[in-house]
């Protein structure tokens, strides 16, 4: 049984439809990349899974159980944590409080704790008292990841964690991913940086205009395939 599945998932913003029947599947412990151009619907897919946008019950399945109508909080308590696009730290909370808030609703056993997160991103330990928004973009991204880890999720959804960051910082953040996988969590990585994504993912989905246009093993996919799935035109 898959850890997470979407079946013919559709999503609307008002009258505007952003997803047209998306099917993806993630197995336990797996790392899946989702790529696609701006506006392809990647973030919408993440929001639909986590209940920010509600759907038909059976459109999202967690271990075979329908969770499409659950609230974000209920989805999260089932062990699906998200690092939202744009990091979305709580500005009135300090770094440490941002981390704590991530772990306060779901208390599951697992490798992640405040200390473990600080070990993963040592810079955060130094800045623990500063307000979350006073950090650099990369540090903020670390807090956002750490915050999601605090609940010891089975599945971690990461939406564009390299967006707007310097290459060195991106490298640091990507370096943390194997350690997170080693902790047992499956990862869904939404990325526009195709190279980075393919380097860490087992499988890749490419989206365009609200549809999945390519599913492939990361190791086997060719540049041409990606290019045509990504832009809708041949390279």
């Amino acid at each position, binding site marked *: 049984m898959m850890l997470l599945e979407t079946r013919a998932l559709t999503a609307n913003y008002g009258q*505007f439809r952003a997803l047209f029947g998306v099917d993806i599947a993630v197995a336990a412990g797996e790392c899946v990349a989702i790529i696609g151009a701006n506006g392809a619907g990647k973030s919408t897919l993440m929001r639909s899974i986590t209940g920010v946008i509600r759907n038909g019950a059976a459109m999202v399945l967690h271990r075979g159980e329908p969770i499409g109508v659950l609230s974000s909080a209920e989805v999260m308590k089932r062990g699906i944590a998200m690092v939202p696009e744009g990091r979305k730290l709580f500005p009135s909370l300090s770094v440490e409080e941002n981390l704590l808030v991530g772990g306060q609703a779901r208390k599951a056993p697992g490798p992640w704790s405040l200390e473990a997160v600080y070990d993963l991103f040592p810079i955060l330990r130094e800045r623990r008292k500063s307000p979350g928004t006073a950090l650099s973009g990369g540090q903020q991204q670390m807090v956002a990841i750490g915050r999601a880890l605090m609940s010891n999720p089975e599945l971690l959804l990461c939406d564009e964690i390299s967006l707007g960051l310097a290459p060195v910082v991106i490298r640091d953040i990507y370096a943390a991913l194997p350690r997170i996988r080693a902790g047992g969590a499956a990862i869904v990585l939404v990325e526009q940086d195709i190279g980075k994504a393919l380097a860490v993912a087992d499988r890749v989905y490419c989206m365009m205009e609200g549809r999945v246009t390519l599913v492939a093993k990361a190791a086997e996919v060719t540049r041409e395939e990606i290019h045509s799935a990504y832009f809708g035109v041949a390279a």
Partner: protein
Amino acid sequence: MILRLQNVSKSFGAMKVADRVTVTVPRGEALGIIGPNGAGKSTLFNLITGNLLANEGRIEFLGRDVTRAPAMERVRMGIGRSFQIPQPFEGLTVFENLLTAAAFGRGGREAEMVDDCARILAETELLSKANVLAGSLSLLDRKRLELARALATGPELLLLDEIAGGLTEGECKALVSTIKAIHARGTTIIWIEHVLHALTSVVERLLVLDFGRVIGIGAPDEIMASKEVREIYLGLEV
């Protein structure tokens, strides 16, 4: 010279998103802008249109200093723009969206604008949807509407932000020929686009932006040949 930026800088907090950008655009040119996500391309547009005000530097349009001028004034002077994330007036119809842009962007009476709006709608293939609420359009039509509305303001300088992203090959071709036609009429165009082949088939120069800095400007072939640009831009090993 239609547009001149001199050492234009903009920061959000500690993050510099435009870093002493200097560029001059001659009248009638088509200039392409590329750069990775978050490089500051859209921000540059916002600075040119007045949606954001620069922290430093000077912006001249048609020889006038517009660094501090509000957005609506710049529209009337002839700077039209599209938004990367389409921002139609959802409660208005497609036609009304254009009419608003025409009436206020050029400052004319509605009745005089009707034929012009209809022509633009035909050109952007929205004519059949003229009376449909903009809020119910598909992504493709929203992007068309962005272009159409920008055109309706009667721009001398047209700023296009990723209007080809996510189009099919056929749609993309049609779009390119539309933009070529607009360019051929003498409108100066600055176009941000990730779909390179579409971009390069129109523009005469390419500008590459990374971390708010101009890291290259020149003929498309030269720019695309640069290894640095290819790496930064696609992130793919070439």
